[in-house]
Each structure stands twice: as structure tokens, then as C-alpha cells.
């Protein structure tokens, strides 16, 4: 890789051991993935829940945090993905003391590194959306795919160590979606049914994710007949990234780089498949038929926007839940929901509104064992895709059907 003088100095250790580790790490990654040089980035976003970090990861962070001030602090705004708990609700979730202690250690270490503990996976709705063409080092697949596709920003998936490295060096290896030629469509899908509800958008993302098959595929969709909302794009992108490991999509006539199909696709690209409403129902039914009685209902993954919380409150008004209903949002949205009375309306039904965590990043396996949760209902396709591996039987339902399930304790026929 070509290095400039600043990068050579970091590599030589002149900017301290943290930045030396960081640039070394980035060069190993960059060489593997064919980067010719680095590109400056204006923000980094770190996924680092302690279930992923483990004790070893927290100790590793603490070693960096023990360095002198000028050697350890990030150079660019660096923010965090959801944490592994909402401390105010941990006892009700039956999370264990050691989990909370590990979370506190990780938070202390990140703060020492100058990281802003935003604890959100919807920073594109709440913190500072990226600008078209802006290079980022984002670390949450849902954040990356939204920023690349809906906003026209440029980021690869940056796992926690690499996002932290980008924060420390202010740059990232220039490969993948930082390069214009990698952003062209490789897969064309014709959509005959524009989804109506969030779980339909998630199902569409899941189906296309299965077609896409790997990170380097860029699906382009034709046929979406209206402009999706930010929440719809959020659920679609999160599911597409989850099922397919995809980091960029185009919706022709909608997303910023794809005003026309010719802008992002070669003329030789022909549709791989046509996706219809029955395809979405088949996708959803495959999960639905495994579940009758539900143990817990979860709205999370991604964290809910203020408008999702408002819709949910409207569906819950005057009702009473009979099984745990967990509603997860960001620390930026929660105060507004409190101020506007939305939190109180939701919690009056027996539900819990949680802040700064994400269900699957919060020791989901241990919570299942402690609470005897097996069957779960959600409107998040991404969550459904993840939780099978954690021992749950998840069902993908509409928001309204999830509310009904939380009140009845089972899924309506």
C-alpha cells in the first residue's frame, strides 16, 4: 500500500503504540482486500457489545485505554453501536451481574479513548446522517447499507477493531465500496409488489439477500412504485445486509446513485428474478408455522424511531400485554418518547421501553435461559435471521400481529 508521511510516522510508532497498532491492522486488512492506499474518513462507528468482545476483548481495550492521553484518543468523531444492556432494566431482563460489570469496564475504556457513547444503530436517523460521497468507517451492517444506499455515502463493513483503528488513524484502507467501480450493480431484481408494512420490507430484504449470496454483490431493484420512508429503508436494508452480507443496493429512480438503471448497471445486466407478494408470504410463513404460543415479543433490530414508537403506542392503547413485550430504541429517541408521553402509553400496557441496547446484542442466549423464552415474535426480519442460532423459534409478523400476540400470548390464526 502507498503511504503518506503521516501514515509512515504512525507505522513507525511516532504517534504512539495505539496508532501504530491501528495502522498495522489496517494495512493487513487493506493488503488482503487489495487496497492501494488509504482514504480519510470523517466518522467511525464501533460495534462493541460485550457478548462479542468477551473478557479478552475488554482487556484488550483496557490496555489501549491505559496509554497516555495524547497516544490513546481517537482523531475523528467516533461513536458506538448499541451496548449489551439497558442498565435501568437489566434486573427485569434477568441479566447477570458479571454482564453489567463487563459492560461498565468496556464503557470506561471507550470513554478513555475519546469515544462518544451514542449506543445506537440508527445514527443515520438521529446523530448525523452521512452526505453523498462522504467516506465513513461505519460498523453495523444496517448503518453501512443505509449510508451507502440511501445516502450515497461510502463505507465498507468495519468491525469493531477496524472501526476503532479508523477512529485512531482518521482513515481506512481504500477498497470495496470506497471505489466507484465497485458500486455498480451486479444483480438485477424486478419487484412486482411494493411492500406495505415494515415486516414486508424486511422479508423483501431477506429474499434479495439470499439471491445476493455475498458481500461483493450489489443488487439493483426495479419496480418499487413509491418512495419508501426512512423506517422502511431501515428494515429493508438491515434484512438485506443480514441475509446476504450485502453493503450496498440501488433502487432505480429512488436511491441517489440510480436515477436511471443505466447510471449503475451495464446494458447486459438482465433480471435474475421477479419477486412477487406470494414470495414475501412464503418467506414469512416459513418462520410463522414454527410458532404458536409466544414467550416474548420484541421490537428491536434496528432500534425504533420516534415514529415507530408512536405507531406502536397507538396499537397498544387500552390493551394489556400477557407476555413480555420489549421495545428497544436509542438514547437519542428515548427522551423524546418520554417527553411526548409515548413511553408512558407503551409501558401502561405492561411493556418495557429499553434504551441504548439491541436485543440480539444483549446476551440473547442467556436471557432466553434465564427467562425461559423460546418462542419469540417480532417484526424485524434481521432479528429473525439471527435468533435461530441463539436457540429461539422466531416468528416474523406485522407490528399489529406482534401487538396482538403480546396481548393474547399466542399468534392469531
Amino acid at each position, binding site marked *: 500500500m502507498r503511504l503518506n508521511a503521516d501514515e509512515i510516522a504512525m507505522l513507525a510508532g511516532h504517534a504512539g503504540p495505539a496508532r501504530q497498532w491501528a495502522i498495522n491492522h489496517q494495512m493487513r486488512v487493506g493488503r488482503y482486500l487489495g487496497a492501494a492506499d488509504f482514504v480519510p474518513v470523517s466518522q467511525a462507528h464501533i460495534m462493541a457489545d460485550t457478548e462479542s468482545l468477551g473478557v479478552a476483548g475488554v482487556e484488550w481495550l483496557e490496555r489501549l485505554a491505559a496509554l497516555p492521553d495524547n497516544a490513546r484518543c481517537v482523531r475523528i468523531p467516533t461513536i458506538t453501536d448499541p451496548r449489551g444492556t439497558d442498565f435501568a432494566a437489566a434486573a427485569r431482563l434477568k441479566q447477570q451481574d458479571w454482564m453489567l460489570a463487563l459492560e461498565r469496564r468496556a464503557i470506561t475504556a471507550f470513554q478513555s479513548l475519546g469515544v462518544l457513547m451514542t449506543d445506537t444503530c440508527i445514527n443515520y436517523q438521529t446523530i448525523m446522517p452521512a452526505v453523498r460521497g462522504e467516506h465513513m468507517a461505519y460498523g453495523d451492517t444496517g448503518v453501512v447499507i443505509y449510508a451507502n444506499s440511501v445516502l450515497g455515502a461510502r463505507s465498507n463493513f468495519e468491525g469493531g*477493531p477496524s472501526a476503532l483503528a479508523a477512529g485512531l488513524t482518521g482513515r481506512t484502507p481504500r477498497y470495496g465500496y470506497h471505489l466507484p467501480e465497485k458500486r455498480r450493480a451486479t444483480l438485477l431484481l424486478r419487484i412486482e409488489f411494493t411492500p406495505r408494512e415494515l415486516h414486508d420490507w424486511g422479508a423483501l430484504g431477506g429474499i434479495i439477500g439470499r439471491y445476493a*449470496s455475498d458481500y461483493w454483490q450489489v443488487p439493483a431493484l426495479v419496480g418499487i412504485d413509491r418512495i419508501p420512508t426512512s423506517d422502511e429503508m431501515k428494515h429493508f436494508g438491515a434484512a438485506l445486509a443480514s441475509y446476504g452480507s450485502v453493503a450496498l443496493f440501488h433502487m432505480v429512480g429512488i436511491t441517489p446513485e440510480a436515477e436511471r438503471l443505466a447510471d449503475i448497471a451495464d446494458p447486459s445486466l438482465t433480471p435474475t428474478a421477479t419477486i412477487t407478494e406470494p414470495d414475501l408470504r412464503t418467506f414469512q410463513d416459513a418462520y410463522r408455522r414454527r410458532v404458536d404460543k409466544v414467550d416474548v415479543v420484541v421490537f428491536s433490530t434496528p432500534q425504533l424511531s420516534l415514529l415507530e414508537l408512536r405507531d406502536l403506542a397507538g396499537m397498544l392503547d387500552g390493551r394489556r400485554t400477557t407476555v413480555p413485550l420489549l421495545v428497544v430504541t436509542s438514547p437519542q429517541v428515548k427522551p423524546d418518547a418520554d417527553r411526548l408521553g409515548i413511553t408512558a402509553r407503551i409501558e401502561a400496557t405492561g411493556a418495557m421501553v429499553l434504551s441504548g441496547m439491541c436485543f440480539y446484542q444483549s446476551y440473547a442466549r442467556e436471557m432466553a435461559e434465564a427467562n425461559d423464552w423460546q418462542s419469540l415474535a417480532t417484526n424485524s426480519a434481521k432479528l429473525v435471521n439471527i435468533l*435461530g442460532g441463539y436457540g429461539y423459534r422466531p416468528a416474523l409478523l406485522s407490528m399489529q400481529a406482534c401487538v396482538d400476540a403480546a396481548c393474547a400470548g399466542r399468534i392469531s390464526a
Partner: protein
Amino acid sequence: MTEFQAAAAMGKRVQGRALVAKDGFSARYDLDRINGVFSRPEHKLAGQSYVGQILVLDAAKGGVATAWMLHEMSARGVMPAALVLNSINPIMVQGAALADFTMMSGFQVDITAVVPNGALVEVDPESDPPCLRILPLRSTPPNPDTHHG
């Protein structure tokens, strides 16, 4: 001895038994990392132990957590010996770099179709180009954790 050249690799040379499937890999989505088994019911290796095995799979899947999880799995010693994929994503590379883990990807053929499940293989990131070798079967399996070089 049959040899397959790869586009890219990192880590140390390692020998072991191949655990092969035409399926993806994500530490978060697919594994019970406490017990060292594939846990996602739909995965073709569901229920099988990955500890000490050379995983030969199709594509990197899922989210960003694997970048930390490989490091965490390595610290506890509940870890595959190496990961061989047709197609990687950056997360696997970032995780392997942090964990000093052996990984190889990018073949002229579908690597899951040409490596028999249970074969004794050598993953050699240090050769130029990096390559995977199918070794002659021995009467007793080698220690899958044996590192060379």
C-alpha cells in the same frame, strides 16, 4: 497431493481435518461459541463441533460481530484451526487480523465441491501464491492444532 491456489490468505500454516459444507459462516449467526458447535438449525453443519477443524465453507455471512468474536474464541481456545472460504467479506479479514487467525479465500473452483469432508488438509498462507493442499490420509489423524512454520 492435490493443491488449490487462493487469491488471498493470512496467518500461519496449519494442518487438520476439513469440515466442509456449501453454506455460509458467521460467528454470531451460526455458532454456539460456548460449546463450540454450529447452532443455527438451518446450517448444514448444525450440531457439529468446529473446534480444531479446518472449516471449508462458501461465503462469509452476517454482521460485524465476527471481527471481535474470533479474538474472543481464540482467547478461550474454542476455535477452528482455520477458515477457508470461496468468498470473504471484510469482517472476516478484520477479525482474522485481530485474532492472528489462519484464513484463505478466492479459488478458481468452488472449494466446497473439491475438498472432501473429513479430508486431511494443509492451509498454507505462506506459500506464493497461498494454497490449500489435500494431504494423503494417515492411519491416525494429526493433532488439528499443529502449526508449522
